[in-house]
């Protein structure tokens, strides 16, 4: 391989794929006339193309495509008759998601959401057991009681009707 092959080799593949400019084509063809190494490289590319292409074309020639079309037609007709819940099935199918391993971040997200929800539901409700009565006033119709919650720093004012008269059985 000659020194000039280095610069040509970058263009050789483009030349083989017919993607070079006219100027580049002339340059390469001039080089190829005196360079067996680059001629071999080009021939190798041609050999690979043949190896890939020929079996595929031969396989395609053997096929019975009208039969394939019949299957397509039948499948389309079948899908048109699907009930609404059957058409939802592909959307509800979780197996592709499981295969793609998206369940790991999904499970992590669910765990975080559960944790946040639990915080809200199981939040400690302040108990009034530690409350102490600060003031109590009575009148004929209503009574007022003022509670002070030390822990929660809350004051509760409770207004209720006056005490019922005790019924004394005769």
């Amino acid at each position: 391989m000659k020194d000039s092959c280095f610069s040509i080799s970058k263009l050789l593949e483009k030349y083989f794929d017919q993607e070079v400019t006219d100027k580049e084509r002339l340059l390469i063809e001039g080089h190829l006339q005196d360079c067996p190494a680059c001629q071999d490289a080009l021939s190798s590319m041609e050999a690979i193309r043949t190896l890939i292409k020929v079996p595929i074309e031969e396989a395609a020639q053997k096929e019975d495509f009208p039969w394939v079309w019949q299957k397509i037609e039948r499948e389309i007709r079948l899908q048109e008759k699907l009930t609404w819940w059957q058409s939802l099935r592909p959307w509800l199918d979780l197996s592709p998601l499981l295969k793609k391993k998206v369940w790991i971040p999904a499970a992590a997200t669910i765990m975080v959401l559960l944790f946040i929800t639990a915080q809200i539901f199981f939040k400690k409700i302040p108990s009034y057991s530690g409350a102490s009565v600060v003031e109590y006033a009575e009148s004929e119709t209503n009574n007022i009681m003022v509670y002070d919650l030390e822990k929660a720093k809350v004051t509760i004012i409770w207004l209720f009707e006056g005490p019922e008269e005790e019924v004394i059985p005769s």
Partner: protein
Amino acid sequence: MNQEETEMISRCQQGDQEALKEIFDKYHNKVYRIAYGVVRHREEALDIVQEVFIKLFRSIKNFKGKSHFYTYLYRMVMNTAIDHARKTGKQFISSLDEEGSFEPSDELEKGPERILLQKELEERVKGAMEKLPAEQRAALLFRDVEGLSYQEMAEAMGCSIGTVMSRLHYGRKRIQELLKDYVELHGQSRSSSNVSKGGNPPKL
């Protein structure tokens, strides 16, 4: 895209099955070649053809005509075929991969032996292709089998022309390494004859 094709696509977008049949008649061979090139299995390739045209019928409404229709279709084929290959978890390991080299000789001229050697070579090519990453395999198929230009390949593969060239280069290099013995013999025998200018497979 010519007028006739535009009309055909438009009718298909409106749900006309006859139009889909026309598209099928025009493209089924190309779709099969790409599918077969990726999965290298007859029944699977036919399943992919079927799947692609059903998908096309359902999703052709999304085709806005900004790119060539065949690059849109090729992209669909390639994605379906790669998905199919991944689903089936197909990992072809040729029994000939690690064995002695294949040497084409005068035996090729003989009947049953020639067929046997041809089969062996096909298996080796199949094995070599399956060792390539899906994108490189796709690039080789689009260029060497379907004869797409770099621009068309970039459209079909959703990447830049530079990426297309890189995929082709590394794909060819890897295949060349895997089939070195055959390519060298085959290449040398041809170099003195007709391969002194760029080859191009037939276009669409």
